């Protein structure tokens, strides 16, 4: 087990890479060791992650269907030989 990070400030600093899964394993271990000793940082991590989840839920956007068809029409007009892929073409859902 790695030595725990000493300070909450270090823990918070590494949090972005930690929750993105890009922190080197030994740094992640040191961070987790700090968490096991520091309830305030556990709360901090949870609310940091909740922030992301809430924003994703509220702000996610799908490309509107009208925009897809207007884009296809535009390309059909401007790209020689362009044809909208039929059903079962490139797109899922």
């Amino acid at each position, binding site marked *: 087990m790695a030595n725990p990070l*000493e*300070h*909450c*400030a*270090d823990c*918070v600093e590494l*949090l*972005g*890479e*930690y*929750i*993105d*899964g*890009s922190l080197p394993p030994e740094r992640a271990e040191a961070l*987790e060791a700090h*968490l*096991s000793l520091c309830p*305030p*940082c*556990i*709360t*901090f*991590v*949870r*609310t*940091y*992650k*909740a*922030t*992301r*989840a*809430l*924003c*994703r839920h*509220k*702000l*996610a*956007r*799908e*490309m*509107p269907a009208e*925009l*897809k068809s*207007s*884009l296809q029409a*535009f*390309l059909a007009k*401007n*790209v*020689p*030989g*362009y*044809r*909208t*892929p039929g059903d079962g*073409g*490139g*797109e*899922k*859902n």
Partner: protein
Amino acid sequence: MADTPTRTAPAEVREQEQPGQVPDVELVRKAQAGDAAAFAELVGRHQRQLYRLALRMTGSEADAQEVLQEAFLNAYQKLPNFRGEAQFSSWLYRIAANSALMRLRRKRRAPDALTDQPLELQGPRFSAEGYLDPAPLSDWSQRADEKMMDRELGTAIDQAVAGLPDDYRTVFLLKDVDGLSNEEIAGALDLTVPAVKSRLHRARLALREKLGEFFGE
């Protein structure tokens, strides 16, 4: 005890190259040889992420539509020059980002992305010894799930995100909401990957403070 790390991109928003599909490079080669169907397939694969990029950068549905048209047409015209050193998606994002930036400049609403001004974004505070001070009072993440559909929370989120500086907001939305990779964002916005990571982290910290206020932390 520790929360497990979660992977970057939410699966539901990454619909580009699926396993078992013809890879982009191959479609690009065909399109370069004049196969319009291959180009149409590339459009189908990338239109949604490109739409999100255009929307996040311009902040407007109407602008996003024009950026998208311009970007794909531009990509088609420049296709012979694409050498395949970069990912096709990154190359495409860069084209769309340039189109969005030009549009913003014409509207004299250039994002402060390029000015790199120092910013006072709120974040957690620490004691002289480096401990969280004040410590978070409540774990409002417990209540977050039930509040997902709450209108007031929705407004608080909108306001908090709108309060971020342009480039922080764009990076945050592209990564945490739309699921682009750090590398894709860096390429599109002409930032280094460390700069993307740092803006992302600072944006999340600032938003966390605002949502904490909403939950009465």
